[in-house]
């Protein structure tokens, strides 16, 4: 009897060690993960003239990343994510225009906190709903925020916005320049920090719980997992990150208008994420970059009809890359590793 007990205990030990290793393993950075960052830095040297555009791409990547947390990992589908982007953007804008608070990095923190508060409050009320209901509720929230801004356009500047914002040089040294070099590297640095943070969350037990909620919420309830609180938590974090993206938007553009709350913004970021591939973190990178680059390319090719090109790409993507472009890359990778084996 004693012998089998120790065997069982030993088996338990081994299993627990394996589980721990498994989790730890994920936290280690695979070599392929360095790729997008290398590309981003390379872009800085290869396309020095396109850094204004590059900053906008990075802003959208961050925005899409924040959406991936709730859409890809927690399975919450919303159409109002622009609300948090807008809150972050306006926090920085109003601080600079009305309070003369122009330090950029503290602006990011302020934006994150403001967006997180809005995310927490709306999330607590709205995350009890799902499906089309949640879509409409989140959409209505974003639009009502926009309308409120328009009502007090004396404060918000309405659709003409807050012009001519100036920001103190970063860390007291690096100032804005016409070519947008400083701000590109700034955005990249912020993205790296945010991404590291998101990655930790996703691979933590909390992240596992989220996946559980996405896959089978009933079971999660059954095992006593605090589903609603987990969802509100991740929604708040995602809101904060979207807020930081919005803040970066205002800082890189030195301008913000009420259109940041537009439904178009929420829809666009969702399309970018789905295009890239949800629930895999780097989908946000691939999707946002590909979409923005294509939009830019088509729009130069035909300023009037470029939407046709983008529409066609989306349709083809759905038909031939159902798990997003990243899914396509993954399958290609698998195909080659299998070929090697055989």
């Amino acid at each position: 009897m004693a012998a089998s007990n120790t065997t069982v205990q030993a088996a338990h030990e081994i299993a627990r060690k394996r589980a721990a290793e498994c989790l730890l393993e994920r936290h280690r950075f695979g070599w392929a993960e360095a790729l997008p960052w290398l590309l981003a830095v390379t872009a800085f040297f290869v396309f020095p003239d396109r850094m204004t555009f590059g900053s906008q791409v990075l802003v959208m990547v961050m925005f899409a990343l924040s959406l991936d947390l709730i859409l890809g990992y927690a399975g919450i589908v919303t159409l109002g994510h622009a609300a948090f982007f807008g809150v972050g953007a306006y926090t920085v804008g109003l601080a600079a225009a009305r309070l003369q608070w122009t330090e950029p990095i503290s602006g990011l923190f302020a934006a994150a906190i403001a967006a997180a508060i809005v995310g927490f409050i709306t999330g607590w009320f709205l995350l009890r709903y799902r499906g089309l209901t949640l879509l409409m509720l989140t959409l209505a929230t974003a639009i009502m925020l926009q309308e409120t801004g328009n009502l007090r356009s004396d404060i918000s500047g309405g659709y003409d916005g807050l012009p001519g914002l100036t920001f103190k040089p970063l860390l007291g040294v690096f100032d804005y320049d016409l070519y947008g070099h400083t701000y590109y590297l700034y955005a990249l640095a912020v993205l790296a920090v945010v991404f590291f943070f998101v990655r930790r969350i996703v691979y933590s037990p909390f992240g596992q719980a989220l996946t559980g909620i996405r896959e089978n919420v009933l079971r999660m309830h059954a095992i006593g997992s605090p589903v609603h609180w987990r969802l509100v938590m991740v929604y708040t974090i995602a809101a904060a990150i979207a807020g930081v993206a919005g803040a970066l938007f205002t800082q890189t553009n030195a301008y913000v208008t009420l259109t940041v709350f537009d439904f178009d913004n929420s829809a666009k970021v969702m399309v970018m994420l789905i295009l890239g591939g949800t629930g895999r973190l780097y989908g946000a990178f691939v999707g946002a970059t590909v979409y923005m680059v294509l939009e830019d390319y088509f729009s130069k090719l035909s300023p009037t009809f470029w939407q046709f090109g983008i529409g066609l790409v989306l349709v083809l993507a759905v038909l031939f890359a159902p798990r997003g472009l990243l899914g396509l890359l993954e399958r290609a990778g698998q195909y080659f590793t299998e070929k090697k084996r055989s």
Partner: protein
Amino acid sequence: MRMIGWLGLAALAFILGGAAQAETIKIGVVLPFSGANADLGHQIDKAFDLYVKLHADDIAPHKVELIKRDEGPPTGAQAKTVATELITNDKVRLLAGFVFSPSAIALAPVVTQAKIPMVIANAGTAWITNLSPYIVRLSFSMWHPAFPMGAFTYDKIGCKTAAMAFTDFPPGKDSTEAFKTGFEKAGGKIVDAIPMGSPVQVPDFTPFFQKIKDEKPDCMYVFIPSGAHAAGVMKAYGELGMRKAGIKLIGPMDLIPDNKLQDMGDAAIGTIVMGHYAVDLDSAQNKALNEEWHKAYGKDSYPDFMSAAGWDTMHAIFDAIKKLNGNMSDGAKVVDAMKGWSADGPRGRVMIDPATRDIVQDEHAMEVYRKPDGKLGERILGTTKAVKDECKELKVGRCGS
């Protein structure tokens, strides 16, 4: 002797070379080519293309190259990216176009830093020209037509009371404020000011107009963004029988865009607008423009006030090129060359005010009537000459900074 010969040859070569040194001046054209306001962009674009085609010889041996980019939606962000790249990548010497005020506003710090002139062919927020010394506007500010209309409405049309209805965004607020200032100064009374929703979607105007109909003012001043809204306004006005009820419809030119006027039917007859351009305007330049326009774009296409502004924009740019002999490398010199520029254009006499770099133009009060040939046209009731932007003159609000 030989030295002088060589020097002489060198000097000759230099002179000849200088004279024959033809510049290709790149101009960045930023207009909305797609999206809900694409029709506005196309109206200006067509005017640009037409002027460049017809007047290419005026600046010979120099040439102009238009690099066109989509302004995008009225958020300012895309316009800023696109225009910044036109400056840094395509190395344009000038930017021209800009239908939306947010685009011009977003770009102001960029053009100041880059020292590139920005010539506005539409964006109408009054204080835009204050944002940078490199901004020159050839189109109008909301105050140009609205302020004189206030006085005209009271004095000449005879309305003692007026209600205002406007799309709820900055141009709407600016325009109604300008009208109110002018109207009240003349002695009139504003009975109501009704915001009519966001500029993005054309709303159902009936509830707003119904309310005004119940209030029975003498006149109703309506401001809507150029484009799709005008037809909706006219339909609602007609359907509710407001003219029969004794409420005159007045407003800026956006109310009766030239390319939609014919469709508006009887409901439009009697509408009085104040504006700087009409297809029927009786001037040699305008007749020539219309003729060339129909030749190039067909008989169903008409120029409108935006096309007229686009035409004058190119005219001003071309005159600057001539004045500087093709040397557009110093942005400040280009702006100086444009200050005080004046010419007879399709709108009549126009001038760029050297103090504000904004347009000075005649404003005509026009009434819609049915011409003998059955088409709808506009006849001029009165003209206020050489109108400046009163917002900056009176230093109202942001215009004072």
